[in-house]
């Protein structure tokens, strides 16, 4: 998000979901779309099938979409920036860039040209482990299609170079004039139904609602006035990974965790659990008992989506109202009422009549949400922000005629290898992800019998060649070890994982791949490098 915001001025999907139907080409990178966003994948599949849209899939694994792709770039884990710089090199070499767009809409093109010169196809093919011809083909398909959409997800962001990777993608889109038009843009697919909404509401360390910065004096004054208080902090706070680190060092003494399960989902998870134990006070609020809640001093109940009313903002920035379908389970109340009560007892009387009144306040203090009123949401299928006033129809695609920040900014980035590279001791690259039937740490999906039946176990996926060398077969148990820990996992042998790499998921507390992952952070976004670390595999 930080990377896209730096390039365009806004860190969200630039297009709406229905626009996928009319695209001529897709570049899908770091997104296992059929598993994680199946209905978005369905639109891509249909555009390919019905309209012969071109599909370029860049993913180390032969994921579902790769099987339908015009071109599959099976590049090495963590070489995304090199791959994309290589594509831009080819584009410039062939004159496929959009000069008009670059001149009118962007700045700093010379710096980009300078850096990508150093990424000739042959070198990139070697670095990334892809065929040079396939790389050329991918660059051509993307650059020379009229309406081309990039879709990406955690596969490129969960690296120490996550922000760089996103900036590089933005560079590619600007270079070819592929942003700011219908069915043409750069689209981060968000992983939860409301993670976009949580970010929009300022559940980030450095911003208030609508990405208004806490270190902007005028912004913070505005919020002080709106809330009738003073002395709000002008300093950005800590990110999640920094908080856990702070718990370890003692910088953080108390933590209030809502709907998260860091004991399973944090990188180097055993370390995270040790850190939480050191806290003076831990509050966990969730709908079910979680591994993290076992460490809590206080557990507060929460409500599922069906038990409460409010709004969700989905991946295409669409704010939708959701009604209460059933009364809360006995003894549970709406989370916002809990927050109000805590604030009141802490000395700041806070109360609202209803979620509608909360949205009124959001409308008042958030320019991009100003026109998204409860009344309008109730009589529509939602509104995509920015929506500056009540007569505004919402904005399906961003950056039309002008980027949110004015000119699009080329910020060329060099390829930097992952923090931990395989060596003799730990010869395999472990990359992690998810499977369709399970959601995150499984606190909800593992309680649904058919979903759990679909994916009941934590598996380690390995290439048949590697399996042969290690003398292991489908269904064997292996010891997987990294510098952080060791796990015993069942093996699934599949050619969909490239040689030298293995794949695991973090859905299962009893075989949690995050006990192996590394807590190396992207310096800007502080996102951990879940997608790459070195492991050894032992037959047992």
């Amino acid at each position, binding site marked *: 998000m930080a990377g896209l915001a730096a390039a365009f001025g806004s860190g969200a999907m630039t297009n709406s979901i229905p626009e996928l139907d009319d695209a001529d080409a897709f570049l899908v990178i770091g997104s296992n779309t*059929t598993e994680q966003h*199946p*209905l978005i*994948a*369905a*639109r891509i*599949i*249909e555009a390919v*099938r*019905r309209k012969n849209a071109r599909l370029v899939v860049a993913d180390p694994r032969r994921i*579902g979409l790769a*099987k*339908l792709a015009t071109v599959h770039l099976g590049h090495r884990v963590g070489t995304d920036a090199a791959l994309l710089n290589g594509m831009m090199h080819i584009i410039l070499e062939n004159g496929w860039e959009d000069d008009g767009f670059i001149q009118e809409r962007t700045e700093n093109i010379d710096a980009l040209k300078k850096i990508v010169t150093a990424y000739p196809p042959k070198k990139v093919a070697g670095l990334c482990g892809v065929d040079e011809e396939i790389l050329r083909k991918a660059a051509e398909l993307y650059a020379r299609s009229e309406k081309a959409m990039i879709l990406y997800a955690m596969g490129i962001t969960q690296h120490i170079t996550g922000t760089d990777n996103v900036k590089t993608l933005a560079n590619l889109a600007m270079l070819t004039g592929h942003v700011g038009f219908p069915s043409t843009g750069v689209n981060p697919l968000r992983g939860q139904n409301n993670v976009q909404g949580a970010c929009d509401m300022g559940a980030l360390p450095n911003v208030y609602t609508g990405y208004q910065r806490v270190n902007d004096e005028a912004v913070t004054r505005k919020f002080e006035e709106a809330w009738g208080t003073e002395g709000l902090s002008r300093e950005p706070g800590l990110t999640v990974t920094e908080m856990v680190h702070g718990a370890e060092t003692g910088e953080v003494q108390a933590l209030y965790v809502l709907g998260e399960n860091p004991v399973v989902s944090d990188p180097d998870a055993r370390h995270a659990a040790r850190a939480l134990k050191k806290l003076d006070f831990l509050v966990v609020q969730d709908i079910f008992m979680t591994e993290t809640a076992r460490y809590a001093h206080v557990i507060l109940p929460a409500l599922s989506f069906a038990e409460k009313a409010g709004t969700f903002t989905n991946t295409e920035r669409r704010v939708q109202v959701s009604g209460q379908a059933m009364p809360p389970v006995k003894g549970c109340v709406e989370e916002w009422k809990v927050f109000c009560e805590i604030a009141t007892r802490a000395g700041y009387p806070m109360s609202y009549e209803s979620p509608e009144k909360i949205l009124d306040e959001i409308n008042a203090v958030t320019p991009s949400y100003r026109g998204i009123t409860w009344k309008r949401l109730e009589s529509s299928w939602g509104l995509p922000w920015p929506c500056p006033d009540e007569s505004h129809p919402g904005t399906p695609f961003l950056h039309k005629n002008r980027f949110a920040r004015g000119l699009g900014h080329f910020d060329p980035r060099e390829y930097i290898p992952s923090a931990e590279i395989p060596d003799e001791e730990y010869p395999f690259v472990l990359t992690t992800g998810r499977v*369709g039937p399970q959601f995150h740490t499984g606190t909800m999906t593992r309680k649904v*019998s*058919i979903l759990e*039946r*679909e994916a*009941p176990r934590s598996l380690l996926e390995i290439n048949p060649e590697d399996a042969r060398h290690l003398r292991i077969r489908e*269904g064997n148990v292996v010891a997987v070890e990294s510098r952080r820990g060791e796990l015993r996992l069942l093996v699934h042998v599949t050619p969909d994982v490239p040689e030298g790499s293995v794949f695991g998921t973090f859905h299962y507390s009893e075989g949690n791949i995050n006990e192996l992952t590394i807590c190396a952070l992207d310096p800007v976004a502080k996102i951990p490098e879940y997608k790459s670390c070195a492991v050894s595999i032992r037959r047992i």
Partner: protein
Amino acid sequence: MKILAKEKVQCLLGKMNRETRVYCPQRAENGDLLLLPLGDGIYTDELGKTPLSAKTVLFPQGEDILLIEKERILKITDEEEVVVFGVRPCDMRAIAFTDRFMMRDNLVDPNYSARRNAMTCIVVACKEPPSETCFCKATGGELFLTDTPHDVQLFDAGSYFIAIAGSDKGKGILGNGHFESATADDVEKLEALKEKASHAGMATNGVQSASEKLLANEVDDLFWGHLAERCIKCGGCVYVCPTCTCFNVHDYPGESGYFRCRSWDACLFSGFTRETSGHNPRPTQGARLARRHEHKLKFDLMNYHEIGCVGCGRCSDACPVGLGAIEIIDEMNKAQESRKT
């Protein structure tokens, strides 16, 4: 034979609803046309083709079937009298099909049969196919019922319905004051309506040839493997199918004990056929897709001399990646043609 003025339908439904629960197609709050208990939406005379068939009344998506307490196990069945108005002929054929399976001589499903025995079906014949995915005629049906058991069948004659009872229950309904006597003209009109309906165009005519191809084992794994590459494994085609009756059970805690709940299952899920050992006789999505369509078009034909598809086209409506019966049947026939040349 009787007639029923369209303007009296709502009044009739309201009257019946006072004694038994009435389901009929209604507009829900969000604008969708759904089969709902009367009053849960707005009745608009429009019957169309609801996304879910009348199967959902007999065999709901999820239902508690047992209560397991410390000292005893209680069977939970629902025997409430229900009238379903606006059942489409294809859906009635589907119910006749599932009856045969769920109420076999020695293996009666108590929940299904309790509801079925308490259910009255008022079928409304289609004047024309209600959607562009209809292909009932290609599966041996018509836009009206010929010999499928039902209670009442209504034919749309413009401002009124021509009503014919198909059972004693149906005769009882026709005795209701809302129905009026038919005239000799109506007999002629009915024949004309049937004649016209029998010429309706269908979304596909290739069911029989696809079925023959499956019987002759001419469809190979490559064909299914290729199609399955685009399946997103949502199970939607199974859930909307009026003849699919597979379910799974799970237990959950209640106040006095544990409830055993059954809910719809789908043969397109990998866990559906996976055995405890881990072995899966249908190991790939292609094999599962093949299994589903072979069941409908081949094995049902072998076992019951009738295919297990009524041509409602709901799977083609629901599938986001074009893997409904229509598309699969057409691709099967196309594959056959291309191989011949």
